[in-house]
C-alpha cells in the first residue's frame, strides 16, 4: 500500500453534473477497467460534519490553493463513503481533515508524478520481515525500511511523556491524600478520647480498644474506597465524553482498569488502617485520667 500525503483544498460543487474541469477519462490499459470520469473518494466524519456534505455529493479537489476548478491540478470527485477516525492518539491534537483518494488521483493532484511517501509491506511471518528489512536497507535506494513496531515506539514518545507526567501528578496527589487522610483519622480518633478513657477506666484492655478503633478506621476506609471507585468511574465517563467531543475522536482518554481499581483501593485501605492504628495506639498509651484532661 503506497501513500501520498499532501494538502488539498476542497471546494463543494452544487448540483449533480461534473464541472467543465473534471478529470478526463484516463486511457484504459488492456484488461483493466476504464477509469470513470468522476471518481469516488472517501472523506472523514469531521469533514462531513463541517462541510455538511452527504453521500453522492460532488466536490472539487484542488492540489494548489487558490486555483480554479479548470486547473490541471483540480479534480471533481464524488463522495462515496465516510470514514470514521481511528482511536489513534497521535491524531488527537491535529485538527486536519482526511480524504482518501485513489493513488494515481492524488499523485496527479499533488504533482507527485510517479512518487509516493512511503510503502507499507505485509510479510508472511517475522522471519520474512527481517529478511525484507535487511534486503531493502542494503539496496540503499535512498530510503529506509522500519518495522512497524519500531515506528510505533518512536511515535509514541509523546504519550510516554504524557504518561510520565500523569504518573508524577498521581504521586503528588497520592502524597497529598495520604497526609490528608492521616490528619483526618488522627482528629477522628482524638475526638474519641473521652470514650477511650471511660473504656480504659472500666478495665477494657488496650488491645481491645486499639482493635475497635482500627476496625472503625478500616470500615471508614472501605466505605470511602468504594465511594471513591464509584466517583472515579463516573469522572472517567465524564472525561471521555467531554474530550471525545472536543477532539472528535473515539479515543478513550481515561480508563479505570481492574489493576488501577485494585491499586487505589489497596492504597487507601492501607493508609486508612495504618493511620487509624497509629492514632489509636498513641491514644491507648495515654493514661485514662490524662485523656479526661486531669
Amino acid at each position: 500500500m503506497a501513500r501520498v500525503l499532501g494538502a488539498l483544498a476542497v471546494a463543494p460543487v452544487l448540483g449533480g453534473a461534473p464541472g467543465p474541469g473534471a478529470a478526463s477519462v484516463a486511457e484504459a490499459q488492456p484488461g483493466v477497467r476504464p477509469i470513470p470520469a468522476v471518481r469516488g473518494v472517501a472523506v472523514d466524519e469531521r469533514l462531513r460534519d463541517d462541510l455538511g456534505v452527504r453521500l453522492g455529493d460532488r466536490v472539487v479537489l484542488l492540489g494548489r490553493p487558490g486555483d480554479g476548478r479548470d486547473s490541471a491540478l483540480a479534480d471533481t470527485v464524488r463522495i462515496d463513503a465516510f470514514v470514521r477516525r481511528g482511536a489513534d492518539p497521535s491524531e488527537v491534537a491535529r485538527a486536519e481533515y482526511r480524504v482518501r483518494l485513489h493513488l494515481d488521483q492524488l499523485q496527479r493532484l499533488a504533482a507527485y508524478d510517479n512518487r509516493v511517501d512511503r510503502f507499507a509491506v505485509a510479510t508472511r511471518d517475522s522471519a520474512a520481515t527481517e529478511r525484507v528489512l535487511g534486503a531493502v536497507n542494503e539496496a540503499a535506494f535512498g530510503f529506509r525500511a522500519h518495522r512497524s513496531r519500531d515506528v510505533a515506539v518512536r511515535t509514541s514518545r509523546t504519550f510516554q511523556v504524557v504518561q510520565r507526567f500523569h504518573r508524577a501528578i498521581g504521586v503528588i496527589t497520592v502524597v497529598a491524600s495520604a497526609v490528608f487522610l492521616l490528619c483526618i483519622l488522627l482528629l477522628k480518633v482524638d475526638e474519641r478520647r473521652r470514650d477511650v478513657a471511660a473504656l480504659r477506666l472500666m478495665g477494657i484492655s488496650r488491645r481491645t480498644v486499639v482493635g475497635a478503633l482500627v476496625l472503625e478506621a478500616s470500615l471508614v476506609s472501605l466505605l470511602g474506597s468504594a465511594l471513591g471507585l464509584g466517583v472515579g468511574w463516573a469522572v472517567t465517563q465524564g472525561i471521555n465524553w467531554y474530550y471525545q467531543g472536543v477532539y472528535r475522536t473515539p479515543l478513550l482518554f481515561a480508563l479505570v482498569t481492574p489493576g488501577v481499581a485494585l491499586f487505589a483501593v489497596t492504597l487507601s485501605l492501607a493508609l486508612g488502617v495504618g493511620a487509624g492504628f497509629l492514632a489509636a495506639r498513641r491514644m491507648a498509651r495515654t493514661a485514662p485520667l490524662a485523656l479526661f484532661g486531669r
Partner: protein
Amino acid sequence: MRLALAAATLLRHRTRTLLAVLGVAVSAALLLDMVMLAGGMRESFRDLLLVRGYQLRLSPKGTLPFDSDATMERAAALLAAVRADPRIVAVSPILGGQLHVLGAAPDGGESGPAATAFAMGLDARVQGDYELVRGRHAVAGAELVASPAFLRATGARVGDTLDVAAGFDPQLRQYAGRRRAVVVGEGRFFYTPGEQPVAALPLATLQAMRGEEGRDRLSLVMARVADGADVEQVRAELQRRVPRVSAISTATALAQVEQRLSYFRQLAFILGAISLAIGFLLVTTLVTVSVNERVGEIAVLRAIGVSRAHVVQQIVLEGSALSLAGAALGLALGLVTARYLNAILGDFPGLPAAFAFFVFRPIDAWRALGLLVLSGVLAGVYPSWRAASLPIATTLREEAVG
C-alpha cells in the same frame, strides 16, 4: 494576646498541627504548579514568538509554520506583496529543508551522509530564528551557523569546512546541490528542539541547493509591524492580498497552540480546584474538631467576658496561621515540583528548547496562595461562630458534668 493564644493552642497538639501544615503545603504546592501550568504555556509561547519582535507569520495555506514539508511558491512575488505594506518594517524569509553532511568512505570515495540536520535558509540581516553564541552570521555563499547539537553530531567546530548537500532524489540517488560550507558561527536556535542538529545558511544558497524544490519557494515569512500599527488589521489585509498563504498573528498562533494544548490547561484548572478544596477541607476539619474539643474553654472565655466576635477572631487566627504556614512551605515545595514536572514535559518530541510549561510569575503565586490562605480564614468562621453562640450556662454545666 490573641496571637499568643492562637500559637499556644496550635502547639498544644503538635502532631496534628504539623500534619495539617504538611497537608496544606502539599495542596499549596499542587495549586501553585497548576496555576503556573495554566498560564505558563501561553506566556512561554508568546515570549518565544516575540523573541525578535516578529508579530506576523505567513505559512503555506492551512498550516502552521513548519507543520508540514509544504512550501510557498512564487516567493519573490510574495515578499514584494508583504513589503508593499508601509506598516511592515521588517521581513524575514525562511526556507526549511534537510541538509546532509557527507562523510568520506575508507576507499576515498563517498559514503552516505555522516549526519542529517534541519537546515534553515535565512537572511542574516533580518533573521529572527537564532541568537549568535560564537563566531559570526552566515552571510554569503557557502557558510553556515550551526547549533550545538549539529556540532556534536558532526564533530565539527567553528571554522571547519564541511561537505554538505541538499535536495536528495532517492531514485536518482543524487543531490540537487552540494557545497563545501564553512562553519562560521554557533547559534542558539529558538524554535527547534535542543537535541535536533540545525544549521542556518544564506537563503539563496539553500534555495539553490534544493534545486527545483527550492527555487523561488519559502517555508515561512516573518514580518514585524511598526509600533502603533494594528497588527490584526495588517494581518487581515495581508491575508486578503495573498490568499494562497495563511497569515497568522501572534494572537492567532497562541490561540491555535492553546487549542492544541488545551488539555493541560483544563487539567491544571481541575487539579488546581481539587487542591484548593483539599486545603480548605483540611483546615475546616481541623478547626472544627479543635473547636468541638474546646467548647468548654470557649464557654469559660465567654463567661469571663470575652466577646463572641473576639472568640471567632481567635479561632480564625488559628486557621489562618495553619494556612499561612502551609502556604509558605508549599511555595518552596511547588517551585521544586514545577522544575521536576517541567523537565518531564520538556521531553516532548519536537518541542522548542526555549519552551517551558511551568513559568513562575510572582502574581500567580500571590493569587494561588492568597486564595488558599483566604479559604483557611473562611474555614474557621462557621465552626467558631457556632461554638461561641452556644448557651454559656448549659455548656458550662455539661462541661462540668462531663
